[in-house]
């Protein structure tokens, strides 16, 4: 369905683009904001991958002599109270933010898809119980649920990923379930059943691939909110622990205290969070317009 919609989109716009590059260029012109979002995300991903190559200082090395040093030649974004390079911490922080963001989105989607598919396909009492359970989880704000899970499991990188992934499961399960319910009524499913295909194989091979488009839209939209949730948890001191450099924690540990003397401690980490979330939101909106035309505003 994803490919079909995309091709239809190209035809609708009267594009004769065939090569990969000209198709990409067509998309950039059609969705300029989405392209900007993709560009921003690409910059963060590259920074995370090549963090060692693009920084000169260690993100963890302290140096009391440069405590609260302003932005300059060596420390282009200044240094924090312990004399750590803010620029290096932001670049390495991209690794943490993306690891938590992508990790928890992936985990949340994995469980959400499994539960939504089973719930929509099996129906009956299983569906009823699962739906009530999802209702219950959605009644609590995402941040509150993540806070409680993270407190219950103790602070670590993995636990932060799990604590943020769990609140995502209901919204993914909902979308996949309603898609599965709609798909189950279609003729091709009946045809597959008529051939004597096993229910299990039918669900995995025929229903699942048709839910990919809404899943991509949902996952991109959730990526921004997971990055934001990680930053909030770490800001509150209940997210990623030391020694990992986290953007959210950079804002809590000293920023408020030294905001008068060292405003760069507030400005740069916040800018990094906002840009990363902004990028995923732009990309998510464009993907929604492209892959899920029913929701187009």
């Amino acid at each position: 369905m994803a490919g079909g919609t995309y091709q239809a989109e190209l035809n609708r716009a009267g594009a004769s683009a065939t090569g990969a590059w000209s198709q990409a260029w067509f998309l950039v012109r059609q969705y300029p904001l989405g392209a900007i979002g993709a560009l921003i995300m690409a910059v963060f991903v590259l920074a995370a991958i090549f963090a060692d190559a693009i920084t000169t200082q260690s993100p963890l090395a302290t140096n009391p002599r440069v405590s609260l040093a302003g932005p300059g030649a060596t420390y282009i974004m200044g240094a924090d109270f312990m004399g750590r390079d803010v620029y290096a911490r932001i670049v390495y922080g991209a690794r943490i933010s993306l690891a938590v963001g992508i990790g928890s989105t992936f985990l949340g989607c994995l469980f959400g898809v499994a539960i939504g598919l089973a719930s929509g396909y099996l129906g009956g009492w299983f569906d009823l119980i699962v739906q009530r359970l999802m209702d219950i989880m959605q009644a609590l704000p995402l941040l509150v649920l993540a806070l409680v899970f993270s407190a219950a499991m103790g602070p670590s990188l993995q636990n932060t990923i799990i604590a943020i992934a769990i609140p995502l499961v209901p919204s993914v399960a909902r979308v996949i379930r309603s898609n599965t319910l709609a798909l189950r009524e279609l003729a091709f499913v009946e045809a597959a059943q008529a051939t004597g295909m096993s229910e299990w194989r039918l669900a995995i091979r025929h229903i699942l691939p048709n839910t990919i488009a809404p899943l991509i839209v949902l996952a991109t939209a959730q990526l921004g909110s997971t990055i934001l949730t990680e930053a909030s948890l770490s800001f509150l001191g209940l997210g990623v622990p030391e020694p990992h450099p986290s953007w959210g924690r950079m804002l809590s540990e000293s920023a408020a205290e030294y905001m008068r003397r060292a405003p760069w401690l507030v400005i740069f980490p916040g800018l990094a969070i906002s840009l990363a979330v902004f990028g995923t939101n732009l990309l998510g909106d464009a993907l929604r317009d492209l892959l899920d035309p029913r929701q187009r505003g």
Partner: protein
Amino acid sequence: MGAYLVRRFGLMLLTLFGISVIIFTLLRIVPGNIVDILFDSAGMVDPAEKQRIARELGLDLSLPQQYVAWISGILRGDLGYSYVSEKPALEEIAPRIPITAKLAVLALVFSVLIGVPLGVISAVRQNTLTDYALRVLSLSGLSLPSFWLGLLVLMAFVSWFDTLPIYSDRITGFWAQLALFSVPAAAVGFRSSALVMRLTRSSMLEVLRQDYIRTARAKGATRQSVNYRHALRNALLPVVTVIGIEAAFLIGGLIVTETVFNIPGVARFLVEAIRARDYPIVQNLVMLIAVVVVVVNFVVDMLYAVLDPRIKYGG
């Protein structure tokens, strides 16, 4: 409608029951025995003393017994005792509720006052430069973490006025309090206004595509009249549901904003209690938040049914 109301109410109670079980269980699987933690930090060594503490806190009972004791306590208005201050939890929580409530209402008002007009403008001028600018503005609003926005506001205060808008419970009087709360409320409300704007825009666009709008245009109604008298009134209906969505959205913003601005409300108290492992406070506060979110959504659903007579609810 009556049957629907009863069913919806039953579901609400079921949801609250489910939340209470989940929260209760989560706080009991926490690594580290609470009695041990309290025991060690109090510097006591006598095992008999330790048993006495466990009995005093009701922790010697089985888990189902503890759960029943907690819920029946809530129904009687007894929320147990804070581990930290050793005062009744109700006495700790109750005075903080009005502070957060004022902040939340003000933030909600702020987000609707900004979000609805901008959403309408954006929809009426769909695909113009104004629309693009407003959409980028709302997306960036959703992308700014509210604690960062709060810190920026504080920084601006420091550099312009050389002072911080510090919370004080000695400030009384309606206008003085309004001024006190408006800065943090704006910081929370800005993010929510972006959400309201997006939902208003899409709802307005939906209505503008309807047949009766075309009819209104065809009979020669002015642009103003079509947009505001015909479209907006119907577009505002789904926006009512936004308040339900916002209830959950706002609480997340309040937690970090109360921390940034040092406001002693319930939202910041939840974080403090989690950090201090003050579980009686944590489980009651999470229940309070759940009750607020669930009840607000229930009321919004009912309100929606009253406002939109087309909606018929089967039992």
